[in-house]
């Protein structure tokens, strides 16, 4: 298959076009780092959705719940760990952060398992019911979050090592954003390796192309489904935890709030495509930060304009997956 590189050029093109518009180089660097960081977090939240769609043909409107639950899980652990949070130094910060992030992933993954098992399994193959059921799940679980964690917004402190910023040349770069970029790249690399270099990844990709064939070769596609759903939910939980620390607060609606943005990313990338999703997330993140600086009023709508433009260029997204 011929590689299609053109969409990849979009990221540097947008960044370069923004440079003269922004005017000053240090501001541009700050904005670009912020945009990349935001893109990485969006990617973590969106990648599970696009994988689940690609493999199982299920569009999960309740994906936002996994994001919120991940954020709440991380917040619960972090607020319990105030001793480690207050202590100076990387080691103690990590000893609070790692359990928090693991808790977020575990909680979201468990919820994902429950969700697939109880809610989605009976409605495979019926899009209308899937949309309705996952909307229902969104309503119920958002309310359950209120029951468990209370209706108020929880402020979320960030550990000392990753707050504040450092200066490169004249540009101020927030530490947390660099951390987000690193984690995001690691997640993308891990996903890429798993999908392209392991047997499971091979089966997943084959399942996306043609599930019946994989099944007839003797593999249990059902188990693969569950695994991918759980992994996707866990990723959403990780993204939710990162996003919550970025916003420094947690509320039950945060998942639903980012859901529209995630859908846009998934549409831009091409439904089911992980690479496209990564690219789409970066584009949305960069554009949001540039327009937020240049034309604040446009910022909220910029990603929708981007989606329209991309769809005019490639009606099925940047990297469409085999199935129409």
């Amino acid at each position, binding site marked *: 298959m011929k590689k299609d590189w053109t969409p990849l050029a979009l990221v540097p093109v947008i960044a370069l076009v923004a440079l003269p518009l922004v005017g000053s180089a240090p501001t541009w660097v700050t904005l670009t780092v912020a945009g990349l960081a935001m893109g990485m977090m969006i990617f973590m939240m969106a990648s599970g959705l696009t994988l689940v769609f690609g493999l199982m043909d299920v569009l999960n409107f309740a994906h936002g719940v996994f994001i919120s639950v991940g954020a709440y899980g991380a917040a619960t652990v972090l607020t319990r760990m105030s001793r480690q949070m207050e202590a100076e130094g990387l080691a103690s910060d990590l000893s609070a952060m790692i359990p928090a992030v693991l808790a977020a992933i575990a909680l979201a993954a468990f919820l994902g398992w429950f969700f697939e098992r109880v809610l989605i399994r009976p409605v495979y193959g019926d899009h*209308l019911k899937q949309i*309705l059921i996952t*909307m*229902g799940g969104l309503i119920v679980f958002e309310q359950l979050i*209120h*029951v468990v964690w209370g209706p108020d917004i929880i402020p979320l402190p960030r550990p000392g090592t990753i707050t504040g910023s450092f200066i490169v040349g004249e540009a101020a770069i927030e530490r947390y954003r660099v951390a987000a970029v690193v984690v995001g790249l690691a997640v993308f690399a891990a996903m890429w390796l798993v999908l392209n270099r392991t047997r499971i990844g091979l089966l997943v990709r084959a399942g996306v192309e043609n599930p019946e064939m994989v099944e007839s070769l003797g593999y249990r596609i059902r188990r693969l489904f569950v695994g991918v759903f759980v992994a996707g939910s866990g990723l959403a939980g990780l993204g939710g935890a990162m996003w919550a620390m970025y916003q420094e607060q947690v509320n039950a609606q945060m998942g639903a709030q980012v859901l529209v943005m995630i859908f846009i990313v*998934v549409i831009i990338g091409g439904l089911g495509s992980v690479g496209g999703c990564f690219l789409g997330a970066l584009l949305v993140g960069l554009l949001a930060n540039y327009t937020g600086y240049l034309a604040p009023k446009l910022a*909220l*709508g910029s990603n929708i304009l981007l989606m329209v433009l991309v769809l005019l260029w490639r009606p099925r997204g940047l990297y469409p997956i085999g199935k*129409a």
Partner: protein
Amino acid sequence: MLFRLLSGDFPRSRALTVVLIAILAGLALAPFIFPGTRSLNVAAKVAVFVLLVASYDLLLGYTGIVSFAHTMFFGIGGYGVGIAMAKMGASWGALALGIFAALALSLAIALAIGLLSLRVRAIFFAMITLAVASFFQILASQMSPVTGGEDGLSFRLPELLRERLVAYYVVLGVALALFLALLRVVNSPFGRVLLAIRENEFRAEAIGYRLVNYRTVANCLAALGATVAGVLYAIWLRYTGPDTTLSFNIMIDILLMVVIGGMGTMYGAVLGATLFVVAQNYLQDLMKLASGSLEGLPLLPALLHPDRWLLWLGVLFILCVYYFPAGIVGRLRR
């Protein structure tokens, strides 16, 4: 006479007939049998939402497509009246112009969305409408000189409509007339084609019906219905704002009403909207009682907290999708 009025689509169940007549009588006589502002507000909201939900059912239940832009059209109706009244003064001309402009805008947007995205799969349409609707919501909150931003617009109506009783019967009358019109649409040959598409789009296309055309027309009709509902709601509240018309929560409410009432049955819209609006206004009181009496037990008071009423409707919604796809109406008709 009755046959023509209901387009031959009778409730087909004694219990359903009784419930429908009770609702209709309750709405028609609401100002006299339930005195008080709150109950009249509830009655007016029921009337508006019956129309809104019925027009959504045309899409979801009869055509089998999920749209998340229904609140956008609802909002266009509300803002059409709101902007015309607030900027041009409380005259009948301005009201007519506002309504007409809102209808034209809705029609244009529905046509554009339909032609662009109804060609592809239903799931794509759902996502596109979600994105467009949220864009519209942003637009309304950002263009505060015109739309009043987050605060919305309060306005005065022409003299006659300031009378609450007149306004109420205008709302009820228009909602009822359009509900009957929608009943006519779904029982027309056009409505039969929509059902055919819902049941088996491949076969419908093979017989020779152009799917895109039928779906787009259904989308436009639904959008116009929602716009009129928005107009009525604005007339009743004398206010238009993002929270009363555009918010995603209202979209969720509409979904709950359609599914609980019964998809693909226009009467389901009546039942769903009535049940939901009454629950929204009175269930909380009941839950407060229940929650209070369970004081001291673990978790239960939190689950029955008055603010958690949506939780129980959400559970009912999921049960409906699994076990009663035709909702309450489907149960009653058995």
